[in-house]
């Protein structure tokens, strides 16, 4: 099972990578939306994307929309992760095609629970 972690903070990417690896995921990192899309192309099979919202070059919402517009990635599960924790923004992310939304700050335990919630067999 491969996962892509997209965040402009190296520290956040590391925390997410460790959490996913402890659940048995193989993890690839990218630091903005554009890099994320390129990584997705390279990976071929990828089951999960954790996407930050605010990032330079291409933000997470734009990246989610681009992923959802590409039928090759229709089964990829996307969890948006952002400190923009207002209900309207969460709805916007869901409308763009995110499957779930984790609010920052989050605990590693919470992240793992939510990943299990959207990818039950991981």
């Amino acid at each position, binding site marked *: 099972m491969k996962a892509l972690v997209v965040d402009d903070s190296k520290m956040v990417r590391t925390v997410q990578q460790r959490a996913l690896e402890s659940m048995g995921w193989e993890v690839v990192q990218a630091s903005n939306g554009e890099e994320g899309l390129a990584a997705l192309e390279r990976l071929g099979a990828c089951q999960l994307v954790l996407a930050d919202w605010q990032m330079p070059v291409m933000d997470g919402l734009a990246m989610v929309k681009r992923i959802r517009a590409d039928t090759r990635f229709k089964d990829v599960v996307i969890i*948006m992760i952002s400190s923009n*924790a*207002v*209900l309207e923004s*969460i*709805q916007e*992310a*869901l409308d763009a095609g*995110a499957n*779930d*939304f*984790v*609010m*920052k*700050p*989050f*605990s590693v*335990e*919470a992240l793992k*629970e*939510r990943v299990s*919630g*959207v990818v*039950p067999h991981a």
Partner: protein
Amino acid sequence: MPEPTQSWNALRSFMATTCGVALADDQSYLMEARLSPVAKTLNYRTVDEYVLEAVRPGAPNRVTAPLIDAMTTHETYWFRDTPFWKALQEQVIPRLGLTEPGSNRAFTIWLAACSTGQEVYSLTMFLEENFPLLHQRTTIIATDVSEAAVQQAKAGVYTVFEANRGLSAPRLVKHFERAGANFKVKEHLRRKVTFVTHNLVTQAPPGVGFDLVLMRNVLIYFPEPTRRAVVQRAMGVMKPNGLLGIGATELLTLPSLSPGWYPRSP
């Protein structure tokens, strides 16, 4: 000045007799960790002094209640334990005979050890999503030994940290409204639940004729005789075809419908 061992022993015996909570030999750190903020707030010089005062027979509730609040565990999150919810949907509710077309019987639930409310609100969300007609006829009594937990549950307000624990974003936007930087359960769901401070060990059940009694992840804190007595009392206030739901790992020596679900014993 009181000896730490004296207060620790007094606390253990108080927690065992009043709350049915058995503290282990190596858990004395819990006394210091959980009660020193309380002792400080209530202006006691030391934790030991506070404990001895709070567990004294006849001590006022304003002194004792914060001790119970701090010492009872509040580990809780949304939609905890997926198989529980699956069994509720596929086996338990169909068995109660409340969902047949034309049925207008009330659905009555007692949820004990509700802590800060995540489980009981998960239940109302679950019913609204999966059994909307039954949800309209549902009433729930939710109880907890901790007054502070009951107050928080009643308010239905959760921080980002709390909301992150197992609550999916689609459910968050559907069932909550904004409350400053926090999230508040919508009023029509809060209205379904009556919250009461209640001690499972020392008090009679808060009603009779329940279709379901849920007491998940609380029996594990009780010694065996207390556990048996609590279960027996709960069975006694269930309808003849009622069911008891407990944590899947809290095994009872009774025939079960599926892990953690027990029909009322004859």
